[in-house]
């Protein structure tokens, strides 16, 4: 563990914490533009966070401590996820603590805690949201693992940092297995981040809510932490996608120069990614909850096809 690695690590976490709401604001702004609505300012999520931090936190009478710690656990998990994923540099001291599989486990840990917290109050919506979120979770998690396996077969490693370095060093070639994995990953990220074909982050319609139903009882600082964590999750997923499928520009050694060039490259990639996400959300419609398994099964199958293609071509 070297000092520059630690600095890169801290820089990454700070960038994620500060920048994640901005990405969310960027996506929302573009979505509004594409839908011919008047766009909110790009810093709208910061306003929301500020508003929530100034409001009172109402906790239900029947809430146990589990309900109150869950937002912080989710926030902690998402922050760690942002620290593990190579966004700026692939020479991270924390990266050895968790490889791709452990990262999926980390997301599952956060999901489990939030689902349990949602069931804790004992209202109609909490349980419904928990059930639906776990449904999406158990479908998305294997698909996510399969996409990671697709890439790791190519790189012979499940450590994210090594995956990025290996892909970075390969001569540029279109890998069919990576293409399948990329599409699968996109579908999974839409589902995991409660984006439109699966869930609508802006809805409060009881028949369609998933994530919003789980956090319905939260308010004030707890809700602020959850909103922030959701932004961090979107940031982490975007960075995983960029790192695995477009890794160019990530620094491999933490010289100050490499870090300085890595930041604008990342911002540019995230900006383009955000517009793509807004475009996907605009051109697709929210689907019924029982169409979601088919949607996610498609992702799963695509990832498996990716694996088989890799085996067949013997790459």
């Amino acid at each position, binding site marked *: 563990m070297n000092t520059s690695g630690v600095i890169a690590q801290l820089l990454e976490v700070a960038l994620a914490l500060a920048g994640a709401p901005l990405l969310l604001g960027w996506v929302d702004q573009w979505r509004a533009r594409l839908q011919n609505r008047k766009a909110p300012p790009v810093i709208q999520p910061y306003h929301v966070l500020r508003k929530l931090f100034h409001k009172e936190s109402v906790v239900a009478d029947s809430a146990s401590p589990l309900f109150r710690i869950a937002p912080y656990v989710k926030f902690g998990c998402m922050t760690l996820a942002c620290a593990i994923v190579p966004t700026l540099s692939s020479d991270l001291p924390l990266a050895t603590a968790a490889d791709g599989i452990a990262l999926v486990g980390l997301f599952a840990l956060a999901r489990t805690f939030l689902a349990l917290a949602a069931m804790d109050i004992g209202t109609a919506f909490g*349980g419904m949201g928990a059930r639906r979120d776990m449904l999406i979770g158990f479908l998305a998690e294997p698909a996510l*693992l399969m996409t990671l396996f697709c890439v790791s077969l190519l790189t012979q490693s499940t*450590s994210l940092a090594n995956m990025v370095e290996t892909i970075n060093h390969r001569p540029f070639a279109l890998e069919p297995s990576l293409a399948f994995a990329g599409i699968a990953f996109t579908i999974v990220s839409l589902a995991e981040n409660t984006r439109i074909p699966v869930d609508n982050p802006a809805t409060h319609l009881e028949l369609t809510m998933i994530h919003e139903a789980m956090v319905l009882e939260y308010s004030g600082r707890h809700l602020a932490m959850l909103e922030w964590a959701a932004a961090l999750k979107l940031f982490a997923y975007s960075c995983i996608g960029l790192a695995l499928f477009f890794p160019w520009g990530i620094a491999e050694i933490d010289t100050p120069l490499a870090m300085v060039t890595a930041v604008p490259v990342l911002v540019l990639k995230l900006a383009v990614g955000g517009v793509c996400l807004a475009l996907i959300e605009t051109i697709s419609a929210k689907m019924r909850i029982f169409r979601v398994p088919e949607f996610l099964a498609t992702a799963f199958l695509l990832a498996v096809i990716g694996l088989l293609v890799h085996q067949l071509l013997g790459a």
Partner: protein
Amino acid sequence: MIHIDWILAIAGGWLLLGAASLLVLRATAIVARWIFPLGALLGGALMVVALDAVFCGPEVAQLVIGLPGLPMHLRVDALGAFFLVVIGAGVCGTSLFSAGYFRTEEGTPPGLLSLEYHAFAAAMTLVVLADDAYTFMVMWESMAVSSYLLVTANHRVAAVRRAGYLYLLIAHIGAIALLLCFGILQANTGDYSFANLRAQHLDPAWSSAAFGLAVFGFGAKAGLVPLHVWLPEAHPAAPSPVSALLSAVMLKTAIYGMLRVCLDLLHGGPWWWGMVLLGLGLASALLGVVFSTVQTEMKRLLAYSSIENIGLIVTGIGLALTFHAYGMTALAALALSAALVHVVAHSYFKNLLFLGTGAVLHATGERNLGRLGGLIRTMPWVAWLVLAGVLAGAGLPPFVGFISEWLLLQSFLLTTILPNSFLNMLIPLVAAAIALVVALAGYAMVKFFGVVFLGRPREEKLLQARDAGGWERLGLLWFAGGVIAMGLFPVLLIDLVDPVTRMLVGGGLAPAVHANGWLLLAPSGIERASYGPLVFLGGVGAATLLGLVIARWLFRGRLRRAPAWACGQGPLPVRDQARLQDSAEGFGQPIRQIFEPFFHVDRELPAPTDAHPRYRVEIEDRIWLGAYLPVARLVDALARLVGRLQQGRISIYLLYSFLTLLVMLLVVRL
């Protein structure tokens, strides 16, 4: 020679304790306060001795008990000692819990129950020690009989008797297969000692037959599909500490037997053996987990989850057998380590969960998920300790369940280099199925914990539930501590497993793992994959604390308690409030819909005009309906046919005698 003597002394001690408890047959207080804690002490001692024995060479002994000229051969080697650790740890925690658990009589008097319990523990120990087929079968059967008596402890209930009968039936069908298996293994030498069986080199057809019989026999005990039907009946029927021992420890003796026969006595086999186990394991894992998500009774849910976990273990063994067949030592060691780590992990968290259900059952008298809820507020000790088991059972980091899952997935990822292209294609699909099973296990565990401990109490009496007492907490702490500690220090687990894999497949992970220090688990090189649970936990903890600090720092509002929103209905009575939340059936509904073909669903839906609308849904196992019931009916029909001979009148029997005599005379004449 020292270990084996100690282990025998401990087994003898258990038998003595059992005999002593007959003297105080109905004195519940003495049995609970003295005999069970002493049993726990012996369990702890067994664990310590076995922990040491894992790292020492094999030791043999002979006991001159039994038929003349046929002494009992005993042996403790790395494989046996590893399973003795599991048995010792399991019995220790369960006995601690039992000291507080058996307060009132449940059918069988407590002294008798204690005898059966300790005999069961001793029988499991001796199964693992046995070094010849006679001893093994005698102990195997003692284990079956003593556990049957424990299962039927509450024998006044007809359903319990039925469950016990089914268990005994399938246990014996399995035992017959094992007898035949040992018969093949001795290859007409007439010497049934394991040393001789090991020395025999059977031709492929015979060794495959022996393998098949062993898989059948041990599979019946382990609850592999399609021989799993007894498990969800028998495990819930028993008192909770017994359910814990059955699910968490006894099933492991079947895994022990499978390893002993397949890898030790038969020295591995062709690659398709591994595929057979892989297929059976995967089918069990998938069926077990899907059924566990739709259960409405907490102990049944856990019993099905045991089928799932045994399936995962067998999948790992299957993979190890395949690698072993191709001579890939490092990969075989990785897959086998994953399976063995899961043996330990499952034994700890399943003990914890079953004991937790015991505490809930005692406090509330309810085992139906539809009548529980909100117990985290009245039983915080049980709830928070069980949460550790739930998170481990869901395979989440940094708990122990994740270690085995991680190792198993790693061993699948590294299989791209098999010389068989068919297998190369197949194995990623298996990895996908494993990922699905683990994710579904998370669903089942959230359902279990959420419905039992969270939400609002579904019955008013739950508000008066009392938390577990001191002994029970101690038992739960023992397992919860293990689940957390082993999750954080996986390198120690790898150390424990290493001598076993060395003995069975000739390679181990310990050197590779030690190269990276004790913080990091990197079985195949740090650049390939690594997982450091302590750093992981530190990271999550630090980030969570950071969140807390940020929230305190930015927060300008205040905290207020208020009633939860009841969908605009205003204040509701407690019962109606509870009815707003998801029921156990409701929580399982998505799984029921997605995996519809797995189930035979019997639904009763209310009509719009019903005065008292009723919704009922019952889920049956298709295997039970399709494979077992027809056989049972056939046996019944045959029995009735034979029964026609029995008329119960003396004249008829005299007629039979006369006819027999006539036939005999004719035969003699001709």
